[in-house]
């Protein structure tokens, strides 16, 4: 079974530039998550989708971050314009939507460096 795919794996940009990350979840997984992991910290949820609808985006900085999952499969996370403090690893995860608990499967992440 293929895992969660993310691209690119690494990205270096200058502040005020724009950047986009792509995620393809495990086939059949209805729920998709984007996390931000700053060096030395645990992952922090940015946004959660169920199919193509947003379930939770309470911690997404909406003035500069946006995300979409138009067809309920793959997803794109965008930052525009980037700030130095956005340097982090951006992790995508997916899960089935059954029962009280759904195990999240994580992709390898995209490491963003903002100069």
């Amino acid at each position, binding site marked *: 079974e293929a895992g*969660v795919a993310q691209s690119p794996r690494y990205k270096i940009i200058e502040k005020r530039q724009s950047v986009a990350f792509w995620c393809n979840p495990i086939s059949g997984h209805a729920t998709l998550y984007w996390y931000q992991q700053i060096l030395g910290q645990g992952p922090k949820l940015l946004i959660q989708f169920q199919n193509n609808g947003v379930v939770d985006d309470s911690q997404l900085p909406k003035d500069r971050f946006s995300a979409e999952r138009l067809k309920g499969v793959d997803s794109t996370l965008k930052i525009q314009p980037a700030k130095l403090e956005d340097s982090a690893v951006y992790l995508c*995860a997916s899960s089935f939507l059954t029962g009280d608990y759904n195990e999240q499967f994580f992709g390898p*992440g995209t490491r963003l460096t903002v100069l």
Partner: protein
Amino acid sequence: AQSVTQLDSQVPVFEEAPVELRCNYSSSVSVYLFWYVQYPNQGLQLLLKYLSGSTLVKGINGFEAEFNKSQTSFHLRKPSVHISDTAEYFCAVRDGSARQLTFGSGTQLTVLP
């Protein structure tokens, strides 16, 4: 809001020695508890989880954890570590009613030869 504290940011240990990685969470009526492992340049992989039932949970790679409700702890243990266990370990908590996981700041386990 739920919070998770991992008391040790770095734990060095010699190969074949036992190890315990500590995790405490803020109190809640019901919680689901998890330990994830992250190898360099990889995503997180689930080691084990506590949902209900027996408080001693066994996971992959010989790890186990014990849920202690009175102390709001979920410490991870392994009786004998290997070089290949070198990685970062994250404790995470999900409230019974919450939709999201809250992660601790991680513990870097380094196994020395």
